[in-house]
Structure formats: C-alpha cells, structure tokens
C-alpha cells in the first residue's frame, strides 16, 4: 500500500477498502519508525493530521471526494500552514507559528488532502544537500551516508522512504529536480507563475516556483491539478485557464506512443563535469525514448556555463532584499542581549541566520551596493536574457530537451559543505531553466554505482517550453509505462 499510486489510493479510499484515518495512521507509524533516523520532517502534529483524515472520511462517505481527498501528503516547511510551526529550516523562524495558509496549502485543504507534517529543507531554501538546515541534515533513504540533495531534501527523502504519498517542493535553482534525482523520484518545477507564491516564504522572487515531488509523472499531474492556478494574492500569478495536467497521459497506448516527438540533447549537458556513470544511465534512457518513437536532435545551449555566475548574482541580490524583513522586531529571532536598535538588528540577524544564508545576503548586498550595480546586477540580467534566448532558439528545433538533472549521484554528507562553489556546481543543469522561467522535471532513470559505495538513483531531466507541463508529464509517463525505476523502493533497514 505504501507504494501505491495516488490514483490507486483514491480508488481504495472511495471503495471503502481503507479509511483515510487508517491510511494516515499507517504513514504516521512509518514516520515514528523511520523519521528519527532520516530526519525528513521538522514538524509533526498528529492531532491536526488525524482531524483532517477524519474530515476526509466524512467527505468520502458523503460522496463528494476529489482525486486527493483523504490522501496523506507532506508539505515543505517553506509553506505557511495556519497553526503549524513554519520555520523555513531556520533558527530565525524556529518558533514561528504561521497565522495564515499559503495558497498551495489552501488548495490541498480544499481538495481534502491530509497534511502529515512539514518537511526539512536547507535554510531559506539555500543549499543543494539539506545540510544548511538548522534542524539538522536529512539522510538519503538509499544510503544514510549520503545527502538527499536540496533544498527540498526532506520532501524528497519523505517520498523516497514512503513516509508520505507525495510531497510539495519549491525550486529556485534546482531545489525540486536535484533532490528528486538524488532520491529517485519524479519532481516537476512548473513554468514561472503557474503556482501561486502566496504564503511561500520568499528566497528569490523572480525564480521561486513550487511544484510536486512524487513517485510518478501521473502522481505529479494529479498534484498539479490541485496546486496550479491563478491567485490574485500573488502579483506574478498568471491569469490562465485551469488545466487538467493529466489530460495527455491517457492517450491510447501504441508501440510507439511518442512517434514524432523531437528530443533535443544539449551538448553542454554532456560535457566535462558530468559523471561517466550518470552519463551512461542517461544514454540508456534516451535509447528507451528512441524505441518509443522519439527522434533525437543534437542542440546547443551555449550560455549554460554562465547560468551559475548569473544565478549567484541575481538570487543573492533578491534574497538580500527579501530577507531584510527578519529584523527581530515583530516575529522571528530576537537576540537575548542588545544595547540599541542597530545592535538588536545586527545581533538578531547574526544569531538567527546560518552561515550559508549570511554568505548569500552579503553577496547580494555587495552586488547591489553603490558602484557595483552595473558590473554585477545589470550584467547578470543581460546574460539572463542570453540564456533565455538559447532556449527559445532550441525550441525551434525540438519539442522537449533532455539531459541529466545533476552531474553526479548523491554525494556523502560533509563532502561539499565547506566549499560553497563546489556545492553551487550541483545545479549546473537546472539553474538555466529557472532563469528562463521554463518548466523542468526529473524522473528516475536508473542507478549508478558510487565510487566507494552503493548504487544510487540517477534522474533524467526533461525541460519543456513555456506552459508545456502536460506534454512533459506525458513524455515522462510513457517512459514510466515501459520502465520500473520509479517503483523501486530503498531498503530502509539496510540504508
């Protein structure tokens, strides 16, 4: 049951083979058993969770269930959920109880989904290993010595360890796709503006986007049907018609369901820096796509290498502004001892933020400071356009772009924590889509043997054109019809 799809769970619930309370309880039992070692959840509240499950059972009995009614989900701790501790992985917000719901939380509540708890994450979503969390690192369920990726590392580990049916994540530079790749799950970062950012704690507002992290493309589609849609409370939410993201999944099955699909392979995604064992898995996945009827086209995204420098100007610049709200006055951490107002700000922020968050605030402050604006911020915005134009050109030749989601499988905890630049290079294949605002996803494509250890998951990345999520989900779904990588589960007793 823990490995069932959302669709299977919904039909079991609606056929009364199991109640939502029983299903929820079975996940809570697993959480009690495994979370102390994995540390995927920051906040759990059994009372609130079971109350939602009971309400879902009443709704199912009354015959007005939705596709997600009664299904237990995990929410990244970046989303405000009323009455829940909402920390964003930071000491700064360790005691913050959200007084309102994020749009995403409201949408899941209205669908009747059950909130199992808030998942661990890199502090303020700044990190690629979940090691910057004030609440401690998260173990990769496939090997406890390895990181789950980040920043949505808790959500990724929770889905991989089957400590929830599916989860939410957010992706500013790869924070859904890289952990999905490292933990062997399917994660989608939608086009910018598709999911409301209302109540989602801001990191870099022009890049942040929420999306689903689940076992399969089909599950992601069902999650998207709930999460996506216009919300007037987010000024960047796009006014588009409501979509059924599963509409393309159920086309008649043929031997070559993807006949005519043009897949672009950017040469920059297969250049130096990509682990050979990962490249092998990606090549094998592309061969499967050929058998499904797709045509492979070699393309180039020449400015890929610049995406990291550009990102590490723009994201910290936006973060330094967004995080200026944490001043110890109205909420968040306030220093225990201070002399005057400035001393209170300086000490509260020095104590409340961790090292990586401080580094990014300082970088952002520097690039925006007098005399440097043109050389850094403006220049980065200009190159951002070049990066976006690369994609526009590429999509004249192909329908989707494929490549690895991350340059390697999961690395060991502690391996990169003292080397920010090495950590930043983890996101080399994911950042450019955020800069362009395009949708991207990662799906499990196999395993690669780590240098000194176990076989670990490898994610295939699919990048689509603007608002092409339904097609991408179908492209992923067809692969998942002929492979079973997405159904494999880690052995938690051995990990």
């Amino acid at each position, binding site marked *: 049951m823990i490995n069932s799809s959302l669709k299977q769970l919904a039909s079991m619930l609606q056929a009364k083979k199991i109640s939502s309370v029983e299903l929820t309880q079975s996940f809570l039992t697993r959480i009690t058993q495994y979370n102390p070692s994995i540390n995927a959840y920051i906040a759990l509240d059994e009372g609130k969770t079971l109350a939602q499950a009971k309400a879902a059972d009443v709704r199912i009995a009354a015959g007005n269930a939705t596709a997600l009614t009664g299904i237990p989900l995990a929410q990244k701790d970046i989303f405000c959920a009323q009455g829940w501790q909402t920390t964003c992985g930071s000491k700064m917000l360790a005691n913050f109880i959200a007084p309102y719901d994020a749009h995403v939380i409201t949408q899941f509540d209205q669908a009747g989904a059950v909130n199992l708890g808030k998942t661990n994450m890199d502090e303020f979503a700044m990190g690629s290993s979940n090691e910057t969390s004030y609440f401690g690192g998260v173990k990769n369920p496939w090997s406890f010595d390895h990181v789950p990726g980040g920043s949505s590392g808790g959500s990724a580990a929770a889905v991989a360890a089957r400590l929830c049916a599916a989860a939410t994540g957010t992706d500013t530079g790869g924070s859904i796709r890289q952990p999905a790749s490292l933990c062997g799950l399917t994660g989608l970062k939608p086009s910018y503006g598709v999911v409301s950012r209302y109540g989602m704690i801001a990191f870099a507002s022009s890049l942040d986007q929420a999306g689903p992290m689940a076992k399969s493309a089909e599950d992601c589609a069902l999650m998207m049907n709930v999460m996506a849609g216009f919300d007037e409370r987010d000024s960047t939410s796009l006014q588009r018609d409501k979509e059924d993201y599963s509409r393309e999944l159920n086309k008649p099955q043929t031997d070559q369901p993807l006949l005519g699909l043009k897949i672009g392979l950017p040469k920059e995604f297969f250049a130096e820096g990509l682990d050979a064992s990962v490249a092998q898995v990606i090549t094998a996945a592309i061969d499967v796509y050929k058998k499904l009827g797709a045509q492979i086209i070699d393309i180039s995204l020449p400015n890929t290498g610049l995406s990291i420098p550009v990102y590490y100007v723009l994201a910290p610049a936006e973060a330094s502004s967004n995080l200026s709200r944490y001043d110890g006055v109205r909420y968040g951490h306030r220093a*225990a001892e201070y002399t005057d107002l400035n001393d*209170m700000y300086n000490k509260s922020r020095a104590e409340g933020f961790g090292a990586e968050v401080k580094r990014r605030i300082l*970088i952002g402050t520097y690039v925006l400071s007098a005399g440097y604006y043109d050389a850094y911020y403006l220049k980065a915005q200009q*190159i951002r356009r070049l990066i976006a134009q690369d994609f526009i050109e590429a999509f004249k030749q192909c329908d989707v772009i494929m490549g690895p989601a991350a340059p390697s499988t999961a690395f060991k905890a502690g391996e990169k924590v003292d080397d920010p630049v090495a950590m930043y290079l983890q996101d080399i294949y994911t950042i450019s889509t955020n800069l362009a605002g395009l949708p991207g996803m990662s799906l499990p494509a196999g395993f690669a043997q780590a240098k000194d250890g176990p076989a670990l998951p490898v994610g295939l990345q699919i990048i689509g054109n603007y608002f092409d999520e339904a097609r991408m989900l179908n492209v992923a779904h067809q692969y998942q019809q002929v492979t079973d990588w997405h159904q494999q589960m880690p052995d938690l007793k051995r990990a």
Partner: protein
Amino acid sequence: MALSIEDIKKIAHLARIEVSESEATATLSKLTGILGLIEQMQAVDTTGIVPMSHAQELHQRLRDDVVTKTNQREAFQKNAPMLGNGSTQPAVAGGLYLVPKVIE
C-alpha cells in the same frame, strides 16, 4: 576585484549582520571564491542587450479598491519575539511592538 576584510565589515554593516574578526576572515575567503565564479560574466559582451528582470513579461494588475483584509493584530502579535535584556515577556505592549528607544 579583490575583497578586503574592511570590505566584508562594510558589507556586513550594510546588511545589519554582526561579524566577529574571525568570522570576517572566514567569510572573506568564501566570498572571494564565489566572486571568482561570478567574474566569469565579465568575459561576455552584453552591449545593447536589454536586461531581463523577470521570467515573464508581466505588468502589475490592479485590483478593485475594496477592503479584503481584516485586522488580525492579536493573531500576528502571538509571534512576537521575547523582549530580551533579561525579560522573557513578549516584545509587545498595548498592541504595539517594543524596540529600544531611538529618539532621545
């Protein structure tokens, strides 16, 4: 451009983050590495390229001028930090937030 310890202290002051001498030294080497990465941008000729400030070409929507929020001061003030300097009381009084005196 090479950063100095003085630069780090100045940036930290602008960002209102207290740094000790030893933190400033450690930060200097990390930030120098990151700025080295960022410097790669300078090799690109960007003459005439319009900066891209956002992923979508958006213009601000206007909403009707009607009241949509109710006063939730009491709910919000439940998250007030502790006053500090020996007091474990919340830093609120009479519906206001308490901060050190700024006007003598």
